[in-house]
């Protein structure tokens, strides 16, 4: 009967889908909102009930949806007794909590948000208990951490809420992360992440060497979630949450997720000594420590929180014992604890809500003012204390019976004794809850006048208390089946479930007696014990946690800001060290064949060039702080590099290099006009030495690499043989470099001109931004006398202007020439573009940018756009011929008298290059010019300053 399995995804999904409703429905009022929140819960609960018969028959319902099959992460659900127990608890108590919260939350609290979070949490919890896939389980597991984070921090204005939320998130998150690793290992051992598979692999798992790591990692998740020692400290701080949250998450459900998982994994993980030692010991210690602390907490919710810790320890202990009988008791106590503890939390919430305090010291004597609450609280607390015949008694008694027969450390009775001590504390704080809150004299100084709340608020705890009593009286009727099927799921067999009130005078009986009497005595001695407790120094978990997180945060800040302090210099130094070191590492581990090339003999002129290059470079380093001098030296370096290109058979490169270099230097000079002329001496000798060492090492590495390359031939023939062979045939040009640029690798050139175009756009946008901002204001107040050389007169010298009038046309002619011949001789669009730009530059230097610009019609943006467009369209044009982008064509025209004229589509492409280059350079100059004008440079009316003809009024005097 697997058909009921189809309900499972619906049950899991309903709370999530429902989570969308409260936010929408809150506009319709608080009651409506509550109804719409409760509806999915009830619906899910109803569907769950439909599954009950099958589960009681011992069937396991399953449902599979593929999510990420390759990883083994699938949406696989299963429902067995254990799942049923927990799902029922989650949904049932969830429903009660929703009712309770409706009345608990005040009008100021955003209820829609609260219910959204609550349903998210509910969905996550249901997901955990229904998962048949441990990776899916992990998903839900972490979701509970997240949703509980939101719930604990719900009252955002309270610092305790925010801190408690973070603490819970960090601690349970930490466990969850450990668990991820554990689950992955487990899945790896079992060969599947599906629980149904894993649970069959007990022998393989326990035999694996990875068993212990997996166990520890998984238990880390369980223990943090279930607030087991030493991770118990987060739970009390989570009590900053509204009480419905405490009741739901921190008593009934989330903290039990760890227990659930231990129970879920019990069949494959339990039964080994490791399991026993880790789990049982942790449970036992937690039980005692939690109970002891609970006794000394004055905050009602803190008391309950630590009692929860203690009871979770108790259940952990039971699971840790590893026996089937103990597992049965564990299941039973889970049910019992959920009932009485949720009820108690709600009563604590009622007290808080009505008396406006949860401080026990300010309470007492409420039994007359709040009789209903008193009744509920008393019954639940007695159950917690393990007083017969309530349900808490039953499971506690069974627990004592189990531990009495278990050998732990030391003498045989050790575990029994420690457990009894725990029980004793448990009795004491339970009694204290009744005595110090409800009994005693009525007081006059409650913050407000307390009275019983309306039915809506006490209904839920009352219902739970009824269960406490009913299960207490008739355990087999009201809990027997549930305990049986859940225990069956845990232990894998048909468990022996027999719950008695009276076991005879067994050790458990005496232990109980000791606990009850001892507890009563302890309560009587509470005042002096409390003084003692307060006087004893003890580690305060919150202080420690805060100290750790603060230290971690501070350390992280210090580390991060220290390493990433914005010092480019150091970052560059790291780069300059890492690259040669790793390069050397790569080099050293490889072999190197002997040289294959005969070196060229050293000739005189290149040797001179080499000396000049070295001298200029060295001088540049020495004088780099004098910036203008540095630029002059850079010019020499550039000249030598260009000459080197000429010498070593690269005329195109030489032309390009020298033109680019002069434009670059002019840009730098233009920029330097606004920058400080000197670089201050800032780095000390040690740093300069360090930089020097890094630089020399880098230089040596490059020298070595270059030399190694130069004395060896290619290992395989270069592809450029093809280019040489096909340049004329296929590309129609004899300048192979140019044919490569515009044809073989025209796509590179396409990218390259786009780089230039972008550069121009960037510069333009940048200038615009700078001039509109503080930079522009600063420029406006610029003092030209900051120029250390001062400013000479004669802005536009006559001779320069006149010479330019002749030279600019000549230069343009040269540009045209270089452009047209590029395909066959050194040259081409790029160099031509630069030459034309230089020609314009001449004009700008002669008469000023603004004067010249006013006399011309093209905008540089358009030039760039057009250039890119022409290049792109030339490329696209090939599509029309059914060829790929940038496929070129060429041919020859014969028009007399122009004998033969070669055309090539590559020339159109080159025209695009040309236009982009001209536009880009000009746009950059325009930007700098606009900065200069901002400093107050006026726009001249005349092209030259000195012109006697002007004053003469002669024919040529009217030049404007």
């Amino acid at each position, binding site marked *: 009967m697997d058909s009921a399995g189809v309900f499972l995804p619906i049950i899991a999904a309903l709370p999530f889908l429902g989570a969308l409703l409260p936010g929408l429905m809150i506009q319709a009022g608080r009651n409506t909102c509550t109804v719409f929140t409760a509806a999915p819960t009830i619906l899910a609960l109803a569907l769950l009930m439909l599954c009950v018969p099958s589960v009681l028959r011992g069937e396991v319902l399953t449902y599979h949806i593929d999510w990420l099959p390759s990883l083994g992460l699938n949406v696989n659900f299963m429902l067995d007794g254990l799942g049923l127990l927990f799902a029922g608890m989650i949904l049932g108590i969830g429903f009660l909590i929703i009712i309770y919260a409706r009345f608990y939350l005040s009008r100021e609290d955003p209820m829609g948000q609260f219910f959204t979070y609550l349903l998210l949490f509910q969905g996550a919890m249901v997901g955990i208990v229904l998962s048949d896939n441990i990776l899916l389980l992990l998903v839900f597991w972490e979701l509970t951490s997240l949703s509980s984070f939101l719930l604990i921090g719900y009252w955002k204005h309270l610092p305790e809420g925010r801190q408690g939320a973070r603490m819970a998130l960090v601690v349970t998150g930490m466990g969850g992360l450990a668990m991820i690793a554990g689950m992955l290992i487990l899945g790896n051992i079992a060969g599947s992440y599906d629980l149904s598979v894993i649970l069959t692999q007990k022998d393989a798992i326990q035999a694996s060497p990875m068993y212990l790591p997996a166990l520890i990692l998984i238990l880390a998740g369980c223990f943090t979630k279930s607030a087991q020692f030493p991770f118990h400290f987060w739970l009390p701080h989570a009590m900053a949450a509204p009480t419905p949250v405490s009741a739901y998450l921190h008593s009934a459900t989330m903290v039990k997720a760890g227990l659930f998982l231990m129970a879920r994994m019990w069949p494959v993980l339990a039964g080994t000594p490791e399991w026993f030692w880790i789990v049982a010991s942790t449970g036992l210690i937690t039980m005692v420590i939690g109970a002891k602390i609970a006794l000394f907490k004055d905050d009602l919710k803190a008391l309950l929180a630590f009692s929860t810790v203690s009871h979770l320890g108790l259940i952990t202990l039971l699971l840790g014992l590893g026996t089937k009988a103990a597992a049965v008791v564990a299941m039973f106590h889970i049910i019992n604890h959920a009932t009485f503890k949720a009820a108690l939390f709600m009563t604590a919430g009622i007290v808080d809500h009505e008396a406006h305090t949860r401080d026990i010291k300010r309470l007492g004597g409420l039994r007359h003012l709040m009789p209903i609450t008193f009744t509920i609280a008393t019954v639940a607390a007695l159950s917690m204390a393990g007083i017969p015949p309530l349900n808490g008694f039953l499971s506690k008694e069974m627990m004592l019976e189990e531990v009495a027969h278990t050998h732990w450390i030391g003498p045989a009775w050790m575990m029994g004794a420690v457990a009894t001590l725990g029980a004793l504390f448990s009795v004491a704080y339970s009694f204290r809850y009744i005595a110090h809150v409800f009994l005693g004299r009525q007081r006059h100084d409650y913050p407000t006048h307390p009275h019983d709340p309306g039915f809506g608020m006490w209904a839920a705890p009352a219902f739970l208390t009824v269960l406490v009593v009913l299960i207490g009286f008739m355990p087999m009727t009201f809990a027997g089946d549930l305990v049986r099927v859940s225990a069956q799921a845990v232990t894998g067999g048909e468990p022996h479930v027999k719950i008695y009130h009276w076991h005879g005078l067994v050790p458990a009986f005496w232990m109980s007696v000791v606990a009850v009497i001892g507890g009563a005595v302890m309560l009587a001695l509470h005042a002096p014990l409390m003084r003692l407790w307060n006087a004893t120094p003890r580690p305060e978990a919150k202080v420690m946690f805060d100290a750790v997180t603060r230290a971690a945060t501070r350390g992280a800040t210090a580390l991060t800001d220290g390493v990433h302090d914005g010092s480019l210099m150091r970052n560059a130094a790291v780069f300059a060290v890492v690259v040669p070191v790793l390069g050397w590492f790569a080099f050293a581990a490889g072999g190197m064949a002997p040289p294959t090339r005969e070196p060229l003999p050293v000739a005189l002129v290149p040797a001179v060039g080499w000396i000049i290059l070295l001298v200029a470079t060295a001088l540049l380093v020495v004088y780099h702080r004098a910036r203008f001098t540095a630029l002059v030296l850079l010019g020499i370096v550039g000249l030598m590099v260009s000459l080197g290109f000429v010498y070593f058979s690269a005329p195109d490169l030489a032309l390009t290099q020298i033109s680019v270099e002069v434009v670059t230097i002019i840009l730098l000079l233009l920029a330097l006009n606004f920058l400080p002329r000197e670089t201050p001496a800032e780095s000390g000798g040690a740093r300069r030495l360090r930089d020097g060492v890094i630089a020399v090492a880098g230089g040596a590495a490059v020298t070595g690499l270059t030399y190694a390359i130069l004395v060896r031939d290619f290992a395989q023939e270069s592809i450029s043989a093809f280019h040489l062979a096909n340049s004329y045939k296929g590309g129609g040009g004899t300048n192979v470099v140019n044919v490569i640029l515009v044809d073989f690798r025209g796509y590179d050139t396409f990218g390259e001109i786009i780089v230039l175009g972008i550069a121009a756009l960037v510069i333009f946008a940048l200038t615009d931004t700078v001039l509109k901002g503080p930079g522009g204001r600063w420029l406006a107040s610029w003092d030209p006398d900051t120029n250390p050389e001062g400013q000479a*007169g*004669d802005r536009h*010298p*006559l*001779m320069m*202007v*006149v*010479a*330019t*009038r*002749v030279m*600019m*046309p*000549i230069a*343009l*002619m*040269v540009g*045209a*020439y270089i452009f047209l011949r590029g395909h066959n001789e050194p040259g081409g669009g790029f160099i031509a573009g630069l030459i034309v730009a230089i020609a314009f530059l001449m*004009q700008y230097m002669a*008469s000023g940018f603004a004067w*010249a610009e006013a*006399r*011309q019609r093209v905008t540089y943006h358009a030039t760039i756009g057009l250039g890119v467009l022409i290049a792109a369209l030339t490329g696209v044009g090939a599509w029309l011929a059914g060829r790929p982008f940038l496929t070129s064509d060429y041919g020859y025209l014969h028009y007399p*008298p*122009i*004998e*033969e*004229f070669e055309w090539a589509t590559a020339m159109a492409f080159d025209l695009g290059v040309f236009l982009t280059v001209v536009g880009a350079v000009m746009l950059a100059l325009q930007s700098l010019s606009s900065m200069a004008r901002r400093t107050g440079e006026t726009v001249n009316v005349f*092209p*030259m300053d*000195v*012109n*006697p*003809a002007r*004053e*003469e009024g*002669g*024919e*040529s005097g*009217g*030049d*404007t």
Partner: protein
Amino acid sequence: MLRKILPHPFLTLLLIVVWQMLVNKVTVGNLVLGAMLGLVIPLFTAPYWPNRPKLRSVPRIVEYVLIALWDICVANVQVAYVILFKSNANTHPAWIAIPLELRTPEAITVLAGTITMTPGTVSSDVSADGRSLLVHCLDAPDPDAVRDGIKARYEARLKEIFE
């Protein structure tokens, strides 16, 4: 009208010559192409050269160029002599101011350029009103003679050419 199409006929001519020099092959095709460029480029640059100087006499221009070239060669020998054989103590540098009769920028520029390229002189500046030229002499025991020489040998000829 013609002025619009052909703003600087001499420039056009120069450009056509330059084009031939560039392509290094005198063919009809190249002449046509050079003529096209020689017509288009001055049109394009005309705004930067708003008024065209009037050149009056072509033979005078040729004469002037030849004189200048000769002087340049001589200048070089003289300067080389000063550099190589004259002790620095015996060299007499001097500044001279040359009052200008030329008025058009083009004429002044040609004069200044010629001065720079010829014997031991460099044009260094003009006066703010453009009516005198500051010249530095490398070795001029008699500066006035140098000034008069320049005015007679170059300026007078340029005045005939330009005005």
